């Protein structure tokens, strides 16, 4: 192993994609943040000569990429698996239009749902949209494969899907820098209506071209470097791709392996020849039996999901247990411990709103973001969460289903970035079709959960430069919401009054709860004056504890300990603020009826 230096770098899969996109001459890149894809565009934005942006959602991101391709430059679009659902509409027709400049769509799947609401297998999109899909196994494979993706895109007039999973995107390994290359396509406006205008007459012609293209790709798959047979010993042969390949190599380093760098379309002749050389063919893949189904459809017998789980991510231990159970060693038993789920940060503005919602008798239709943690105890103030933007439509649907009974009982909550993503059209529907559900926009000035990305409402672009900021109040009024209130979510009692009043209304209304995320760089730098507990005055009522703030802890007392501390014998404990963790939001002080929480004087 040569040392890390000029040519060899230590990188995550996402950083390697950014590097390879730069080297491949990408000129325009767009996408929407989503774990585990976010760091691709963040990194790419630091390279010279590449235009990068955060789009409001993945559909727009893909359309921007397609436009750049039509203009004759190489374009990259990034998203997580559920984002491809949003982008599916342009995807299926971009398959017909094809490209001018190379167009690669990165889709990052999240088997095991480390940070997702489902674990769909995006390989199915390659089949459904009739597009090639390439799949690296680790960061070291990304460079050559992504450049191949751009070359294929231009040679075969097709968008190319490039799939990663969490254990490729967020794995680090040694990566070799490559040559910087340029697309042979000449940028400019070129009118190609037969290809770009997908009216039925044109689309029928393009549909035939799509079929011919996929046939060519199938042929190319037979000889391409990225699909390879690794010779080995034993009667078993493995067909695998992506990170699953590494698990196979880890557990069966000497076995015969057919590694697919392109998981669609498949090299049928190669697979048939490989199958004929082994006694037992085993397909090792995460999530759906994608390769397995298509190999079985070729009439080739194989094992797959009869042995290997189709849920969650794989790892070497699962592969070993599924295929070689005798080699599993006895493990130490796990010890039951209190769980440690993620929590909103100390001083998080969302906490104030969810505290209030937990006290109001309402159904809270939630959405995707840090605030989904409002579901967890002690706040337990979220009753549904489905996908980006769904909160608003679901609340409207419930309100329509229940009629008068729903009045004052249905609330939807959505973050600023998620509202920009796909929440607005839900609000338009609520206004247009008239329901009285209340929408709370949790405006913390940033896309927080994925690690602080700017969005159309934040006032900055991906590079942190000043950008036009959407005025959320004006936007809500423009679509017809008559009552738009802006509140400070840290002001718990003030918020409560505004929310109660809003719930009484007979028409759609919006409350914008505005306070910056405590993880914003400027908030981290700011000097917070923390609160502290005046212990002599704490009665152990637990009012502040019910906020679930990580800076406040409950300290139980026995009757003797209570007396020794000067409390009443029956006092069960006291609350203590950790002043290092406290961000000085003051939500707890508003709840303390005994003046036991005080702001430290500077």
């Amino acid at each position: 192993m040569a040392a890390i230096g000029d040519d060899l770098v230590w990188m995550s899969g996402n950083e390697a994609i950014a590097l390879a996109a730069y080297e491949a001459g990408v000129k325009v890149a767009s996408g929407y943040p989503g774990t585990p894809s976010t760091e691709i565009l963040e990194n790419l934005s630091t390279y010279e000569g590449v235009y990068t942006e955060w789009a409001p959602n993945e559909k727009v991101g893909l359309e921007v990429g397609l436009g750049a391709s039509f203009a004759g430059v190489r374009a990259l679009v990034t998203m997580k698996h559920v984002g491809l659902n949003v982008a599916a509409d342009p995807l299926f027709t971009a398959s017909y239009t094809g490209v001018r400049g190379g167009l690669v769509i990165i889709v990052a799947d999240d088997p095991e749902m480390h940070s997702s609401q489902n674990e769909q297998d995006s390989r199915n999109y390659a089949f459904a949209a009739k597009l090639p899909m390439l799949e690296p196994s680790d960061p070291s494979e990304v460079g050559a494969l992504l450049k191949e993706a751009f070359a294929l895109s231009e040679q075969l007039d097709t968008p190319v899907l490039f799939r990663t999973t969490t254990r490729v995107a967020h794995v680090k390994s040694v990566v070799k820098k490559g040559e910087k290359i340029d697309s042979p396509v000449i940028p400019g406006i070129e009118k190609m209506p037969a290809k770009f205008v997908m009216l039925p007459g044109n689309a029928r012609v393009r549909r035939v071209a799509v079929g011919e293209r996929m046939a060519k790709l199938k042929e190319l798959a037979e000889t391409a470097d990225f699909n390879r047979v690794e010779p080995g010993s034993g009667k078993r042969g493995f067909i695998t791709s992506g990170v699953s390949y590494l698990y196979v190599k880890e557990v069966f380093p000497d076995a015969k392996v057919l590694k697919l760098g392109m998981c669609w379309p498949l090299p049928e002749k190669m697979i048939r020849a490989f199958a004929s050389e082994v006694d037992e063919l085993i397909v090792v893949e995460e999530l759906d039996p994608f390769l397995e189904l298509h190999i079985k459809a070729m009439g080739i017998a194989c094992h797959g999901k009869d042995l290997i789980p189709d849920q969650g991510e794989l790892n070497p231990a699962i592969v070993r247990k599924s295929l070689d159970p005798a080699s599993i060693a006895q493990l130490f038993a796990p010890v039951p411990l209190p769980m440690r789920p993620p929590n909103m940060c100390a001083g998080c503005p969302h906490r104030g709103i969810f505290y209030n919602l937990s006290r109001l008798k309402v159904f809270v239709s939630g959405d995707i973001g840090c605030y989904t943690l409002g579901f967890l105890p002690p706040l337990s103030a979220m009753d549904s969460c489905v996908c980006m933007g769904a909160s608003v439509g679901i609340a409207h649907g419930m309100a329509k289903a229940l009629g008068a009974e729903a009045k004052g009982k249905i609330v939807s909550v959505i973050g600023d970035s998620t509202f920009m993503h796909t929440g607005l059209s839900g609000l338009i529907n609520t206004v247009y079709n008239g329901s009285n559900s209340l929408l709370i926009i949790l405006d913390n000035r940033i896309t927080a959960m994925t690690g602080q990305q700017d969005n159309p409402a934040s006032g900055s672009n991906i590079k942190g430069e000043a950008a036009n900021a959407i005025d959320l109040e004006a936007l809500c009024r423009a679509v017809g919401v008559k009552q738009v209130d802006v509140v400070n979510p840290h002001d718990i009692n003030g918020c409560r009054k505004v929310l109660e009043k809003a719930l009484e209304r007979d028409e759609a209304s919006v409350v914008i709860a505005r306070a910056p995320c405590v993880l914003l760089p400027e908030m981290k730098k700011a000097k917070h004056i923390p609160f502290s507990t005046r212990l002599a005055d704490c009665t152990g009522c637990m009012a502040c504890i019910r906020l679930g703030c990580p800076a406040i802890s409950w300290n139980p007392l026995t009757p003797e300990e209570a007396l020794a501390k000067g409390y009443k014998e029956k006092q069960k404990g006291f609350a203590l603020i950790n002043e290092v963790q406290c961000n000085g939001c003051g939500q707890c002080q508003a709840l303390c009826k005994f003046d036991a929480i005080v702001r430290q004087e500077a």
Partner: protein
Amino acid sequence: MGAQGNILFSGVGGQGILLASEIMAYALLAAGYDVKKSEVHGMAQRGGSVTAQLRYGDKVYSPLIEPGRADIQMAFEMMEAVRYLPYLHKDSTVIVNTQKILPPSVATGKATYPEDVLDHITALGIKVVMVDAFDLAREVGEVRTANVVMVGAISAFLPMASSVYEEIIAARVPKKFKDVNLKAFAAGRKVSQA
């Protein structure tokens, strides 16, 4: 060469585990190993239980450590040292920061923090090195260097010289925090060598 190993990092989101695991990765790369590291970002980072997995050897395939095969566990919190017990084997070494961070259920009085939680590990005969990283970091003058104290503590169990780590630390922390981080590293290394 020929050696290989698996290092499991565990702790609570926000403790600086990623930086510690980066320093370890660069140190192993400098020693000529092939290295892979796996992390999880996103939701888990919000104060939840987090791990990073680092594997090194002549050639590393899987980025994930198999249960029963972690040679060193670097735990940044006591309960998080015990949570991943199935990853350990009897010859593992557990380096643990003796800090308690209360999970929400404990902080809100719904559960209690298990007493003498490390006994679950020592009872199995597994070597445990206790490091009061928070106090040592305070002593060197910056509580936020607790993660580098931990790097110092683990460094004594790997073949690389101190200078390898020191060079990496110097290159990876802001200039004005360089000296305090180097002191933190030395303080941690001393604990393991005692």
